[in-house]
């Protein structure tokens, strides 16, 4: 017996809210691809200097730079949505009976991200 299945085609194009949702979900394709690029770089690094330098040179191609630029924007959007729902995906945080407001948790996550990213940039720049 076959039961009726409600058609779903194109549902996410009918409402801007769902379009933004799908755009956020698209970040997963870029995060996966980025991890594979790093894995490939690790393999080339294990093979030696010429191989690693060839990998790095391939990353300088316009296609690669465009890919990373799009990935950067989508992952930024992912981070924004991730931090925004954080208070709803974790248990209430209480300090001495005082419940930390949602806005504090979001602000703390943003600040943490900025501090960690800044530290990473300084480490790469200076060391």
């Amino acid at each position: 017996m076959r039961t009726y299945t409600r058609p779903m085609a194109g549902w996410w194009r009918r409402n801007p809210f769902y379009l933004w949702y799908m755009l956020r979900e698209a970040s997963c394709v870029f995060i996966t691809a980025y991890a594979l690029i790093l894995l490939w770089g690790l393999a080339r690094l294990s093979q030696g200097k010429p191989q690693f330098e060839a990998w790095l040179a391939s990353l300088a191609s316009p296609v690669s730079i465009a890919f990373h630029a799009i990935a950067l924007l989508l992952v930024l959007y992912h981070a924004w949505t991730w931090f925004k729902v954080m208070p709803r995906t974790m248990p209430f945080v209480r300090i001495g009976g005082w419940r930390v407001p949602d806005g504090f948790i979001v602000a703390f996550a943003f600040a943490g991200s900025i501090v960690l990213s800044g530290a990473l940039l300084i480490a790469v720049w200076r060391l």
Partner: protein
Amino acid sequence: MAALKRSNKPVFWSLFGAGGMLSALIGPMLILITGIAMPLGMVNSGYERAAAFAQNGFGKLAILLVISLFLFHGVHRMYHCVHDFGIHVGPGLKAAFHGFAALGTLAAGWLLLSIGV
């Protein structure tokens, strides 16, 4: 009545969550550094420097965590995306997605071991 089977959901959700958190915290900066600044020569990206990082214990752990958690995060969301597009997903597809991330993790671990100290 058959015994209730313990769900494997918490395991994959935790890996998805860890990858989501890591990519939200440092993902944009990592992409900017390795995908744009390094290839365009804006920062020192010599082979010796990269090799030294991959030979260092902390560096090995950092590389493994980024590759593995980003993969587990990505495949988990893709698996749910397939459902969003109206395709019914079964355990086979789930195993394929998460198996892919597990293989990537094994490959990264093996490469890091082969690079040595």
